[in-house]
């Protein structure tokens, strides 16, 4: 009895590694081949969306932060973004805009903007003003100050926004099949095809993917952070 849930997980692992006939009959589902395909689809739509969020939100956040303007806007967008239910966002796209890769990418992109915008703003703002003044005194131009002083010092906070956005996007891509884009979430949402083992396998794969993305971005953050900043103790995030 108490081992019943272990059976469930054994079945899910079997689904991941071995093909089987679909519940609906006819086609083969599961196995590493399909898992790899679905993972790539999931990564693809997530990567498109994250790139879009970065391209839009980071320049605006950095610029506002450098100018020291629009604090209310940056913070308000960050707060509002948390209140948007992922399911409602996808439902909104389905009901009002349309389904398919482009529409889903836009929905996920929108989801990634608030954390990146707010964190880039805060990251640039909290750079030591003395460092900026020193750079100006050395005759650096404004773009040089942003590129050579503010951005390198802002990497930890800035990247924490990117990580939050990436995790939100990967998580929400799980329900993308509701809007006609097949991802790993299809295993979870199409129980009638994949069966209970497929559903649980989907959940395991999505969880692992999210953790891998988080670890990979933590690695990127470490690579981008200047050594001098790494040596300081990281301040507690609020």
């Amino acid at each position, binding site marked *: 009895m108490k081992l*019943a*849930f272990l*059976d*469930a*997980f054994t*079945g899910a692992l079997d689904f991941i590694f071995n093909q089987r006939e679909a519940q609906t009959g006819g086609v083969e589902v599961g196995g590493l081949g399909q898992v790899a395909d679905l993972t790539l689809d999931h990564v693809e739509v997530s990567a498109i969306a994250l790139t879009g969020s970065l391209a839009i939100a980071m320049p605006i956040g950095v610029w506002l932060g450098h100018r020291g303007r629009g604090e209310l806007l940056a913070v308000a967008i960050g*707060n509002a973004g*948390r*209140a*948007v*239910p*992922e*399911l*409602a966002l*996808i*439902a*909104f796209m*389905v*009901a*009002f805009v349309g389904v398919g890769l482009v529409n889903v990418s836009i929905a996920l992109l929108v989801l990634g903007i608030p954390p990146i915008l707010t964190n880039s703003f805060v990251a640039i703002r909290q750079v030591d003003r003395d460092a900026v003044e020193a750079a100006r005194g050395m005759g650096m131009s404004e773009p040089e100050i942003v590129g050579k002083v503010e951005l390198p010092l802002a990497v930890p906070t800035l990247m924490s926004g990117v990580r939050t956005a990436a*995790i939100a996007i*990967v*998580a*929400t891509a*799980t*329900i993308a099949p*509701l809007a006609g884009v097949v991802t790993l*979430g299809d295993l*979870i*949402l199409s*129980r*009638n095809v994949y*069966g*209970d*083992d497929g*559903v*649980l396998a*989907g*959940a*395991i794969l*999505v*969880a692992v993917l*999210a*953790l891998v993305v*988080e670890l990979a971005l933590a690695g990127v953050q470490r690579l981008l952070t200047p050594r001098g900043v790494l040596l300081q103790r990281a301040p*507690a*995030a*609020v």
Partner: protein
Amino acid sequence: MNPGVAAHLPLAQGDDFFQERSDTGCVQENGFFCAQWAFENFDRYMSPLLEHIVLVSVSVFAGFAIAIGLAVLSHGRRWLVPPLLGLTGVLYTIPSLAFFILLLPITGFGRTTAIVALTAYTLQIIYRNVVAGLANVPAASKDAGRGMGMTDQQLLWRVELPLAVPELVAGLRIATVSTVAIATLAVFAGAGGLGDPLLKDITFRTNVIVAGGLAILLAIAFDALLVLAGRVASPWRKVRPV
């Protein structure tokens, strides 16, 4: 096949919730917002809304209690802070839908699963903020408490934790607002909530606006309530320093 896993997901339900969608013009044409339909059918959203409120309240309260417990445990044992932050961080990283499904074989289809997962999500934010709040307590306040002869325990409960209330409330607000949003997915764990009507007809515009709008309004209401509670719990903040 596996009795532990739910036998049915909400998607499979052939509910007659929106059957009369073919009634009137606006509804049939799936207009931008059919006010009349929304008005006449608003009562159908009440029990999902109540379920949503219960899910969020119970989860945030449980998360609050556990996070405070962890913060008290790791207070004065600084080496515990990084592993606890790491552990709660891992929980926070797992996508909510996956979390619900992973728990199904263990805690079963229903409210328990949703509450366990939602509680786990709140831990990271609340714990991190309590730790930051305790770290920001002015040394002078602690010295004053010691000078009055307080023990470590008294100092923690009567001086340090009360002074950490602003950071604590900030954490609670973030956690609560996120939980309201994530709880729309609790329907996949069999726990109802506003995700239930949302999923029943995801293409019906009026339904999406009412269900999604209620979720956002609920988040705003919870947030306002916490701001108010924070003011009541930190009366000294009204006093301007001279």
